[in-house]
């Protein structure tokens, strides 16, 4: 069962080859079996999952099913799920039972999906390795001595190890695409505003975007159909109508123009990765695409601009964790100040504190213009670079990450190196564009992802290209040893 895509599972459920309850029990069993090795789940939810599966079976029986009814999924533990623990990978929320559902959760519940559990992640989505979690590091199924990437590492590892056919993730600076790349699966970051942020615990509000982590582009399209859409509870949600993202999957790539940014190749890019990407691009040329070299002159500055903006926003977004209304509260606070200082010092991990402190600093009196305002100006330059490039080409292609999965603990005390590894992903968030990472080959026996960046709301085109690529290649069908 676990080798099936959700598309295949859906028809099996419709044809009564097995019930959702059987499917869900199977996956729950698989999760229990492998989670100890991978640590990709923070919570498993067997009871509610079986309940949901039974109700999904009824819907299928009555002919009220959607293509997602009865399909199990895992939610990144950043999405609030009513009545269940939602930790965001933090001690701060270790006791937090969310009192409401995130809009994404509501929408997927409504589609009839079954939640297997909540996946592990970098604390408050701050990290690129999924090691900063209060619940311990997630392991990469391709090599359990390596990280799965982050921050949606638990979701990516779970899908790669086939502990869940699909998972949700969030992407602030690459947190869906980079772990998808490092785990050999498909990860889509939609256009900013396409998927509601309501109930998704905020890291950096102007950059955060939820999306699906799947085995195939086709599954991502099916998922996006259910996840995307206007939400009146999110002021930044796009009012633009949602299209059927599965409709154009098989469109021809004839006449497609691909831009290859000069700045993305050479330099710090590992040669073995570069050759995987070049081969991927060749494949797309075989499918009818043309290639053009383009310029994204301010690429390199996306890292500092991104970190200033993300850290500034996070320092404010995380002020609500004060031990008063929910979450961790220190024992016996002697006064109000003590309550704040200790609850927050005890509740947050090191990387989160590092980011809050830096973010507080860049907003503080006398530094705002030099850091925050400057970063916002660069943000415009970076966005304009993309806009200009996308006037000449349909999509931009490059690597998702400059390297394959790193060893556990490799960067734990070297935040700067970790930040620099986000070079190809953060600019997309600054610009608010959609992008997808698809498996494109291997380097040193570890998966390598190819990133396809599109114009605003061009998810359909991205999924079409990714799907055609996956029809022509089998990288996305490879499974890590031990999880076949």
């Amino acid at each position, binding site marked *: 069962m676990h080798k099936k895509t959700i598309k295949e599972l859906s028809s099996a459920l419709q044809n009564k080859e097995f019930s959702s309850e059987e499917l869900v029990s199977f996956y729950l069993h698989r999760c229990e079996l492998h989670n100890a090795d991978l640590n990709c789940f923070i919570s498993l939810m067997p009871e509610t999952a079986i309940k949901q599966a039974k109700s999904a079976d009824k819907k299928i029986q009555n002919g009220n099913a959607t293509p997602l009814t009865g399909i199990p999924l895992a939610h990144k533990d950043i999405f609030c799920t009513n009545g269940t623990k939602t930790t*965001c990978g933090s001690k701060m929320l270790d006791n*937090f039972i969310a009192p409401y559902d995130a809009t994404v959760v509501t929408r997927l519940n409504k589609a009839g999906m079954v939640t297997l559990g909540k996946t592990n992640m970098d604390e408050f989505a701050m990290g690129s390795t999924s090691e900063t979690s209060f619940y311990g590091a997630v392991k990469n199924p391709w090599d359990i001595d390596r990280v799965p990437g982050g921050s949606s590492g638990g979701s990516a590892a779970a899908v790669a190890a086939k502990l869940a056919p699909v998972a949700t993730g969030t992407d602030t600076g690459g947190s869906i695409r980079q772990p998808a790349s490092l785990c050999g699966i498909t990860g889509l970051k939609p256009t900013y505003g396409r998927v509601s942020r*309501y109930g*998704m615990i905020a890291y950096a509000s102007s950059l955060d975007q939820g999306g699906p982590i799947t085995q195939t582009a086709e599954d991502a399209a099916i998922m996006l159909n259910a996840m995307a859409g206007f939400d009146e509870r999110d*002021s930044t949600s796009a009012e633009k109508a949602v299209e059927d993202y599965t409709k154009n999957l098989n469109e021809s790539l004839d006449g497609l123009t691909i831009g290859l940014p000069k700045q993305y190749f050479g330099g710090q890019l590992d040669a073995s990765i570069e050759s995987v990407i070049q081969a991927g691009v060749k494949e797309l040329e075989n499918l009818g695409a043309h290639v053009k070299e383009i310029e994204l002159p301010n690429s390199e500055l996306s890292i500092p601009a991104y970190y200033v903006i993300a850290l500034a926003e996070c320092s404010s977004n995380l002020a609500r964790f004060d031990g008063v209304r929910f979450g961790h509260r220190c024992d016996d606070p002697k006064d109000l100040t003590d309550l704040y200082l200790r609850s927050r010092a005890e509740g947050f991990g090191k990387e989160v504190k590092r980011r809050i402190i830096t973010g507080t600093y860049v907003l503080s009196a006398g530094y705002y213009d030099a850091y925050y305002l400057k970063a916002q100006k660069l943000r415009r330059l970076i966005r304009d670079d993309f806009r200009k490039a996308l006037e000449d080409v349909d999509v931009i292609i490059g690597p998702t990450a400059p390297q394959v999965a790193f060893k556990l603990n490799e960067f734990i005390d070297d935040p700067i190196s970790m930040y620099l590894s986000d070079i190809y992903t953060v600019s997309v968030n600054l610009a608010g564009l959609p992008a997808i990472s698809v498996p494109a080959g291997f380097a040193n026996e570890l998966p390598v992802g190819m990133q396809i960046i599109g114009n605003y709301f061009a998810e359909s085109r991205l999924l079409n290209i990714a799907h055609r690529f996956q029809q022509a290649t089998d990288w996305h069908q490879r499974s890590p040893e031990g999880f076949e």
Partner: protein
Amino acid sequence: MEWETVIGLEIHAQLATKSKIFSGASTTYGAEANTQACAVDLGLPGVLPVINQQAIEMAIKFGTAVNAHIADKSVFARKNYFYPDLPKGYQISQFELPIVGHGEIEIQLTDGSKKIIGITRAHLEEDAGKSVHDGFFDNTGVDLNRAGTPLIEIVSEPDMRSSEEAIAYLKKIHSIVRYLKICDGNMQEGSFRCDANVSVRPKGQDELGTRTELKNLNSFKYIEQAIEFEIERQIEVIESGGKVVQETRLYDPNKNETRTMRSKEEANDYRYFPDPDLLPVCIDQETIEAIRKELPELPEAKRDRFIKEFGLSEYDSDVLTSNRDQAEYFESVVNAANGEAKLSANWVMGELSAVLNKSNIDITQSPVSAEMLGGMIKRIKDNTISGNIAKQVFEAMCNGEGSADEIIDNQGLKQVTDPGAIEKLVDDVIDANPDQVKQYQQAPAEKQGKLIGFFVGQIMKKSQGKANPQQVNELLQEKLK
């Protein structure tokens, strides 16, 4: 040395929306603690703010009413600080691009002089919750019902030179926001609050002195007292060789003094930045014009019209227009009373006002509608009843006994104007009181006026107050000659 006082005011007016500025929770005052604090107001993880359109419109109304520039693009920013009544750890406010820019209003002082006071800006923000210090032993209780209530903060220029000017300005703003029906103006419940920035400088000096900010000023009286106290205090500090410290001071109405709350050194670094959860609010010229067109007549214009149209005194017009509901009630009374303005003014400001005060209710809850009161005044005017009987009728109306006409009919209060009937009453009283008649006739002319009152009284008593007093008077004077 002669000193000059410089005062600037920051007014916080709660906007009278049904729901909060960023959430769908109710803004009703006085609910049980935390029953009107939804997930957004509580700052739960993952929730997001959405701007209330009505709050924006109310801010535009205010801006147009004070002839201010309305920003075509305004931005909400986060003001970051920690406090238990501030659930998110930041207040959503406006900083660089407020919705209302520079405006001004004219105030009138008791000596009749007028002065223009500048308004620097007015911006929208969310109110904080409330801390309750009593009843929780070693703890403070936090009630977040008020958190997220829309506020407009109106910042004046430091244009006021005395507590009298400050109060006149404050009252003017108070009356404008109530006229616009954007704030109920209730100071006790905190829907209209004020902080005052006060400094002194030697007369003639251009440079401003060091200012202090006075807080906890929740009535016009306290504001006046606090400012007066603070002026004295600052002058005393300087004259005894000291320096005024820039700080926030709390007014204590029980001791009538201000005391240090926090000094500038402890001041926060608020780290304002545009709220990334919200997008800029853009307002086009058409929207502003549409709102401007629908602005009600403001107190000043109304007052001038009352003087001109109704021939009322400046004083009466001022009192009647001090509150929009009262002014509107008055106009309805005049309408129902066939244009009888002076009498209507007397009744609204006199008897009606007394009844409302006594039961501590608002004119909108008056037991006597404007139409009913006007109907009664019509009957005074056409001599159906006398002013005295009218008091009786009015009381009956207050008790819900019906309209003036019904009461007059039912209780037979119609004035006696038939000359024959009045003559008979007069004759009867003269015949029954020969001694008083003699006394009257022997009295000097200047005392007769007083003595005739006795006869009028007797006749009124006999007629149960219904005899037309004017006719009675005339006939008496004739017959007693």
